[in-house]
């Protein structure tokens, strides 16, 4: 069966976008409810339970309130940018989803329908480009509000986001080295296990690229600006940070944008490191449309539904994980945050890329074909590096810059402050 072309393609794309957009909005709305329930569970209280059954209608009540509340416009605000900022907070997070492959291709009467909104040749470069637009929302909001809290929040947020963007970009280089292509469906199929056809590693990349997956997870979390990386809106210091002056739906858009960003980040981690829509230990879902239109495997509708389920489950588990983190871990201090980005992640990734390059070169020279032995060797290498890093080099010193300063200061005022033993500080 041939892939779709012409009018059928355009109609199918439009349909996919509408269905996906509604789904995304529903998931975003539900995740705001879900987060409060998770928070309630973790803090041993009920969470929302008054509006509707189990408090499920809380989402509707919130939305209505956002719309009906008074729009306050701060005097001295830069009107144009003040309006544009929430749009830039919400739109990039939703548009990011375009290149996400969310299920195996489905056969239709008009040809094979690939379950991705836009399979663009630039692949994840698009993701990096759009993700970096998110910083404009924060900068504009901070600058245009004409409030000191907003201004400081905007500054902090922009510095944080650009810092972690470098680490985020670098942590995609190893993925590109293994796959050799930036297109998202190829990244998914490289993590599957094909008996014939395209080369595949037969393992989800979080195993052969453990360290990278970890860096991507943390940098991605920092990009969403959630606890423990919510320095841009740290309510104890900056009231609301960059959105202090925002009210009604304009605040609501930042709010929705944050959750859309959360879901998008989880989906990205799923595609890059958790096999995308791949179902583990099952060969039936090894379906792939090659560039010349050849189809490998047998696409069917029920497989599409199953693989979409797999994708959704992985993404939601990650979302739950991020919520769990939010209600468990305290916020970083700003110098710790910057140290982690610049002094830990960037050097680690630079060394890691070179070690991985050398290892892949040696494996290729040894004539080991791409497959489970190849990924097995990489898994062993990564395990060794993780152990070396965590128990050998680090010894609880990820925040060393900060603790050493505390120690220096404590040593400076001799007698007045007892220097804490290093093991206790760390």
């Amino acid at each position: 069966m041939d892939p779709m072309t012409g009018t059928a393609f355009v109609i199918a794309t439009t349909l996919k976008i509408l269905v996906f957009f509604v789904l995304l909005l529903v998931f975003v709305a539900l995740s705001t409810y879900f987060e409060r329930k998770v928070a309630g569970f973790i803090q041993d209280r009920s969470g929302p339970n008054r509006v509707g059954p189990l408090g499920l209608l809380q989402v509707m009540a919130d939305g209505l309130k956002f719309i009906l509340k008074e729009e306050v416009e701060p005097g001295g605000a830069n009107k144009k940018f003040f309006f544009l900022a929430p749009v830039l907070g919400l739109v990039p997070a939703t548009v990011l989803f375009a290149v996400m492959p969310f299920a195996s291709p489905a056969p239709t009467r008009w040809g094979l329908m690939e379950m991705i909104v836009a399979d663009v040749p630039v692949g994840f470069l698009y993701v990096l480009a759009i993700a970096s637009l998110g910083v404009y929302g924060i900068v504009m909001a901070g600058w245009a509000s004409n409030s000191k809290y907003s201004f400081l929040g905007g500054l902090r947020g922009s510095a944080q986001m650009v810092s972690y963007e470098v680490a985020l970009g670098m942590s995609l280089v190893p993925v590109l080295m293994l796959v050799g292509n930036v297109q998202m469906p190829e990244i998914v199929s490289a993590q599957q296990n094909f008996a014939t056809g395209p080369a595949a590693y037969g393992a989800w990349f979080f195993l052969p690229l453990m360290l990278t997956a970890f860096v991507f997870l943390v940098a991605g979390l920092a990009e969403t600006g959630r606890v423990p990386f919510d320095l841009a809106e740290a309510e104890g210091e900056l009231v609301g940070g960059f959105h202090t002056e925002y009210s009604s739906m304009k605040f609501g858009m930042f709010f929705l944008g944050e959750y859309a960003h959360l879901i998008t980040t989880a989906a990205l981690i799923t595609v890059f490191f958790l096999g995308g829509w791949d179902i583990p230990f099952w060969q039936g879902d090894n379906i792939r449309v090659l560039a010349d239109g050849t189809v490998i495997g047998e696409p069917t509708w029920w497989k599409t539904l199953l693989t979409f389920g797999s994708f959704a489950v992985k993404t939601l588990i990650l979302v739950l994980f991020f919520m769990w983190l939010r209600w468990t871990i305290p916020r970083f201090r700003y110098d710790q945050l910057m140290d982690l980005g610049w002094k830990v992640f960037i050097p680690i990734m630079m060394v890691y890329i070179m070690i991985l390059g050398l290892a892949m070169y040696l494996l290729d020279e040894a004539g080991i074909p791409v497959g489970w032995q190849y990924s097995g060797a990489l898994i062993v290498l990564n395990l060794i590096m993780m152990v070396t890093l965590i128990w050998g080099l680090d010894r609880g010193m990820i925040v060393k810059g900060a603790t050493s300063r505390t120690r220096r200061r404590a040593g400076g005022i001799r007698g007045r402050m007892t220097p804490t033993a290093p093991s206790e500080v760390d």
Partner: protein
Amino acid sequence: MRQAYIGIAILLVVGLLNAGLFLALSHLASVRRPTKVKASAYESGIDPLGDTRDRFSVKFYMVAILFIVFDIETIFFFPWASIFRELGLPGLIAMSVFVLVLGVGLAYEWKKGALEWE
């Protein structure tokens, strides 16, 4: 392949329409009774003092400059990584030199204190 970009264009339009709808809805449905106090910038209850767009720490400029340098260098990784296998050993050696230069630059900034936050 090029037709794939249609999807992005449609999604962008839908996303912008959605954002516009949100803004328009709240603009039309909400009441507005602006007062002078409401319009003043929030500064924990007291009257705003001084100019908001004040001078700020030079550290933020440093981060911006470092970001541009390092982000461009990250971009240099991508073409190399995508044909890494074809390049073989010469490519690996060339990249090692590049990473070494990058590392020296990072170490220099580190030593100079450009990455310190007090």
